[in-house]
């Protein structure tokens, strides 16, 4: 759910830009404190990876297809702070080069997908870390919360009535979250089997 420019009111735009801007500044500052040189190309190349994951559509039932966000996957591997920077970078590139989302609506999109997907998702996963079920739960919850926030933002910009907008999004995004969760479990299982040292990068 990438919100393009033109749909959010000036108030919602300013508020979400402020929240996401402060979150970005705080996280860059925290990461800069003890970053090692090899983490910079690592974050950069994995950012390309996340970006490709987002453009890679999975065919699901009925000829429709969905794409993943990769937020939870990258946060489990690199930690939520690095994951958040990567998600923000990919949202910026999507908005600038692929016309997917907007520039002034970046605040809302970074809040919905970056902050929720990385920090809330990772937080839920860490209630019972290392379990497949917690990955799936975290993924569904983050996806539903992102849809909920998008509905709040669009409804307070008078785009639609909150309850109708929410209902139509919740169905889609709980299924999307479930599929993303299952695939994330599958990818992490594969990495643990083939190259387990990748799982220790975040610690």
């Amino acid at each position, binding site marked *: 759910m990438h919100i*393009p*420019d*033109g*749909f959010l009111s*000036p108030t919602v735009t300013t508020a979400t830009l402020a929240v996401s801007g402060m979150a*970005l500044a705080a996280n*860059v500052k925290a*990461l*800069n404190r003890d*970053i*090692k*040189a*090899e983490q*910079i*190309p*690592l*974050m*950069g*190349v*994995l*950012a*390309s*990876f996340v*970006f*490709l*994951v987002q453009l*890679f559509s999975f*065919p699901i*039932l009925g000829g429709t297809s969905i794409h993943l966000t990769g937020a939870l996957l990258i946060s489990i591997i690199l930690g939520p702070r690095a994951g958040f*920077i*990567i998600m*923000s*970078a*990919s949202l*910026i590139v999507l908005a600038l*080069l*692929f*016309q*997917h989302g*907007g*520039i*002034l609506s970046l605040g809302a999109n970074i809040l919905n997908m970056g902050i929720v997907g990385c920090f809330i998702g990772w937080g839920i996963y860490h209630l019972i870390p290392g379990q497949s079920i917690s990955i799936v739960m975290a993924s569904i919850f983050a996806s539903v919360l992102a849809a909920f926030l998008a509905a709040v933002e669009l409804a307070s910009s*008078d*785009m*639609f*009535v909150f309850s*109708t*907008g929410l209902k*139509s999004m919740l169905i889609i995004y709980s299924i999307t979250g479930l599929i993303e969760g*299952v*695939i994330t479990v*599958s*990818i*992490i299982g*594969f*990495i643990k089997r*083939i*190259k387990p040292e*990748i799982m220790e*990068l975040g610690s």
Partner: protein
Amino acid sequence: MNHGFLEDHAFLNSPVHRLSPKSKLSAVFLMLTLILILTHLFQPALSIQIMFALAGILAVFTFLSRVPLRFLLLRSSLVLPFSGFVILVNSLSGTMDPFQILLVLTRSILSVFTILLLISTTPFQQILTQLSRWKFPGLLVMVIAFMYRYFFVLAKEIKSLEKGVGMRSSKLGGWQRMKTYANILGMLLIRSYERSERIHQAMEMRGFSEESL
């Protein structure tokens, strides 16, 4: 390696291309803010006139830039699915009248057109350089630059992984297919990790350290 379809027109030569990235980026931010604020400040009838004026300014720059209008309009239409979704939900609940819907559509198309005009007249590298001059966090700019640089490399890699899977297996059923997709992505992640190690060695050889940020 081909950034062609993204930067198709960024290296043309025109008065707009020769403007400094600083002025172009400032103009884009100003334009987006005007599109956002002005239509919320005034009555709908006046808003439509303002939209025409802003569209006129964009038309002048489009003409001067020699970027094909067809390309810009075609790419601008990428925002239509989202508009369709909002209109659909609206028809169920009915918050906006058709006039307001038209206003929202115009706003979103003008905004995306503005961004397209920027990236079709300014190489991406110059946009990033300008952002770091404006004290954008260095780490974020670097991650974006890497993302842009390696996106096509990884896209090529995923193509060859898909080809490999396609050659070795006939049509897979739903669950099996999803699992194979997950394995392809897992493999791509491992290769990306290994690639980043080699990139780091090359960067270190040239004197890069964490102080370079």
